[in-house]
């Protein structure tokens, strides 16, 4: 019985949340007047298929979208929305300050340093939708 349970737990595809491992997630504390902030983390894909992060939900934000940072040779930087972040099979993708990030917009409440904010990321892998629940410290 125990052996059977153990094998069941090891079997692949049992839990969608395990497909995408999130390392060191956090939200940036921003000035009280801010209408947007960003979430950063490392997305690690343990599966054989690419995993997409498409959007998310969070009690403090009205809209959540993946955003990339663009940079030209002359130091001009900008940002652009993308449909999703693709995390390659058995690969990872870093979301970091000054780079790609999950944009939290239409803030209903501006996160303060030290708070913990729940965030659910919507994912897609091989046409199947999933989600990852996270608690992000604000710093």
């Amino acid at each position, binding site marked *: 019985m125990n052996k059977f349970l153990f094998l069941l737990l090891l079997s692949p595809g049992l839990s969608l949340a395990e497909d995408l491992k999130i390392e060191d997630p956090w939200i940036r504390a921003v000035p009280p007047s801010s209408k947007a902030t960003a979430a950063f983390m490392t997305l690690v894909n343990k599966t054989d298929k690419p995993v997409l992060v498409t959007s998310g939900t969070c009690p403090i934000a009205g809209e959540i979208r993946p955003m990339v940072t663009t940079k030209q040779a002359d130091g001009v930087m900008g940002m652009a929305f993308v449909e999703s972040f693709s995390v390659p099979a058995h690969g990872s993708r870093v979301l970091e300050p*000054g780079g790609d990030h999950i944009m939290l917009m239409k803030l209903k409440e501006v996160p303060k340093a030290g708070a913990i904010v729940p965030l659910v990321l919507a994912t897609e892998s091989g046409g199947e939708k999933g989600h990852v629940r996270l608690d992000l410290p604000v710093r």
Partner: protein
Amino acid sequence: MARTRQSDARSRRIGLILFAACMVVAVPTLIVLFSIAGKSSSPWFGQYDPDTHHAYNFSLTDQDGKTVRLVDLRGDAVLLAFGFTRCPNICPTTLGNLAAVYRKLPPAAQERTKVVFISVDERDTPASMKEYVPFFNDRFIGLTGAPADIGTTARAYGAFFRKADAVGSDKDDYMIDHSTYAHLIDPEGNLRVLYRFEQLPETEKITDDVLRVLGTQAPGKQP
């Protein structure tokens, strides 16, 4: 006797030729070696400008509604960056790093250092700057101005900006693409060091550069 004199002259000539050949090889080699050594031991972390260029003397409005001109800051080191308060990623990263640079300065050097953030967004006002800039450090100076003055100032510092995509359905909720360099201006008002965005997290090295332009070298560090 004549033969000896002749061979003396010849050996002297050979000696001269050898000496000249050595110099031809040695001098450029030494010049190259010295310049490499000079480069690697440059004390400056950012891109240092050895020429003296007066930085453009802007006249803009701070978060308290007071006019600030660059000449008013003579005697102080100035760290200067461009951005806008609705910027959710780049500007907070830049200002967070500059705040860390400022915190690492000894109190006497903090008194003589000004961090200036100039908005390239016509939606920004002294009021929006007051809500934004002191969040990073309450001594930082946030400047706004008439679009023409901001444009002239940005051009003078080689900074570029343009309106980008709207964030959502509201077309007034747009982003601005902008230059991400930070300038270090010396107490005489000269442009001295330029930092790329990627260099800004190395706050200790920038602190050393600030102390160097102030002429108050960090103890134990040779210029």
